[in-house]
């Protein structure tokens, strides 16, 4: 029994070790080294990289990243809950609707975000149509701002709130809602006092599933946010590419990872498994 467990766990464990633990250790090491003249890293060991992160410029980037991730998460939950509720209550068509929620994953995330560029830009579909029908005289500035980034994030991560919320709603005992009605609770009141509180675990799971990847995103902010909207993810990417400052990029990545893990621990309730 024990041996069987070892055999079963070894492949996944080895993969995780080689692709997650080892690189994390490398990043950790790099973050304490100095920048090489042509990229890469050199000695001596230093904590300069972390000191630079605290500078107001980078602090602002961190703050913006958190703010945008928080707004996107809140929107995903607010939009995902009614959708999950609808699916959970649609009887035999549940599986069809769940399939539709997952359908976008069949296309590359990158391509889907590019598609948004074609929709939102000044010469894009929406502006062209609105100009044609004379609803507007000048193209609406829909691309390259925080709004576009949040839109892209909500679009991309909405399924990650719908699925856990659906799972909790599906398990909800329908007699609890009957009991609420029986005790004088009108439908909206019952939704607020019974359904939503009992979905707390789904809200927490959905929030974590969306917030953490939003915090680290760089594709969405790069394509839809333009050069004005730099988030932590773009900062890290820049350090490893254009700026050739690997140690600083590693420090930023490490800081992001630590913050994300701290949040995971904070969100975990006593005696309750995450997700």
């Amino acid at each position, binding site marked *: 029994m024990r041996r069987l467990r070892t055999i079963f766990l070894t492949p996944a464990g080895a993969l995780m070790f080689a692709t997650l633990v080892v690189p994390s250790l490398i990043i950790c090491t790099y973050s304490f080294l100095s920048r090489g003249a042509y990229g890469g890293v050199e000695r001596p060991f230093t904590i300069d990289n972390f000191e630079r992160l605290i500078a107001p410029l980078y602090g602002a980037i961190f703050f913006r990243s958190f703010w945008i991730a928080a707004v996107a998460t809140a929107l995903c939950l607010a939009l995902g809950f009614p959708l999950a509720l609808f699916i959970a209550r649609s009887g035999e068509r549940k599986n069809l609707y769940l399939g539709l929620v997952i359908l976008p994953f069949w296309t590359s995330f990158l391509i889907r975000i590019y598609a948004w560029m074609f929709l939102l830009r000044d010469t894009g579909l929406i502006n062209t149509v609105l100009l044609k029908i004379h609803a507007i005289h000048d193209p609406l500035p829909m691309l390259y701002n925080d709004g576009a980034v949040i839109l892209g994030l909500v679009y991309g991560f909405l399924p990650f709130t719908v699925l856990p919320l659906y799972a909790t709603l599906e398990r909800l005992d329908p007699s609890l809602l009957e009991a609420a*009605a029986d*005790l*004088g609770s009108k439908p909206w009141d019952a939704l607020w006092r019974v359904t939503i509180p009992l979905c707390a675990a789904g809200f927490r799971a959905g929030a974590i599933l969306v917030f953490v990847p939003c915090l680290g995103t760089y594709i969405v902010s790069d394509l839809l946010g333009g050069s004005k909207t730099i988030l932590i993810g773009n900062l890290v990417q820049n350090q490893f590419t254009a700026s050739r400052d690997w140690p600083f990029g590693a420090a930023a990545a490490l800081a992001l990872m630590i913050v994300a893990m701290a949040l995971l621990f904070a969100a975990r309730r006593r005696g309750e498994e995450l997700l």
Partner: protein
Amino acid sequence: MDSILELRRVSKTFGAQVAVREVSLVIPKGQFFSLLGPSGCGKTTTLRMIAGFEAPTSGEVWLSGARIDPLPPYRRNVNTVFQSYALFPHLSVRGNVEFGLRRKRFEEIDARVRKVIEQVRLDGKESRMPAQLSGGERQRVALARSLVLEPEVLLLDEPLSALDPQLRKHVRAELKDLQRRIGVTFLFVTHDQEEALAMSDQIAVMNGGSVEQCGSPEEIYQRPRTRFVAGFLGAMNWIGKIGVRPECTRISRERENGGRAAVVTRCVFMGPAIHVEARLETGESLVAQVAATERGFEEGSAVHVSWSARDEVRFSE
């Protein structure tokens, strides 16, 4: 006695399936009234139509002289104790009991909660969560949560079935006491004939969506109108078209007046009683219940069985 709840030719169909067929009932105020029947007989559907969770396909439900079947559950002055209790797991005992009082904007909430908690003997457990309570305690929270709203009729959907058998008999007596003390009309749904007989003032026996017989426990036990009612309420010996309960069937080694010759086929020791199974010369089998202190009936021994004519049950069907 004044009636408080009345069902007038109520039917409910689910697709092609008829769950309840033209049920008419009059439930007197202050009574412990039971709907008794096997699973699928329509008793729970009937209860759910009174509570408002299902709309009747046809027929009317009247409560205290007002028609309630078009009203949603939250506008009906009846409350339900669910089979699974359906306590809100995120609310404490107090939170559960207060829930309805706050929704219905009652006054003096604290005093009402305190009183009902005392009535169901949950004092000191107000801040416990449902998961921290025993089955019996949960059932009492479910009762308290409904009773605190002073419903005109309390609907109970097999509230004892989730309890273990030891506790069930105890809770049965407790529930009956509570009903007598507070005087609220109870409409109790059960498939357990012993439970219904022990607790009810009146029983309506349901089968296949219809009420087969309605009457006092003695009446339906001793004078069942249909074979189904007779069989559902307890064992019955059938000799042709005549039915006799085992406890009314006498068995003896000596021949009595009108006794019939039989051979003992089996003896089953039940604790306080022995069930002696015997076969008549005509081939029919019957069971006689004798005191456990009575000995001497052995398999294969020749006996005589008899019963008095007033214990006979006859059906026209």
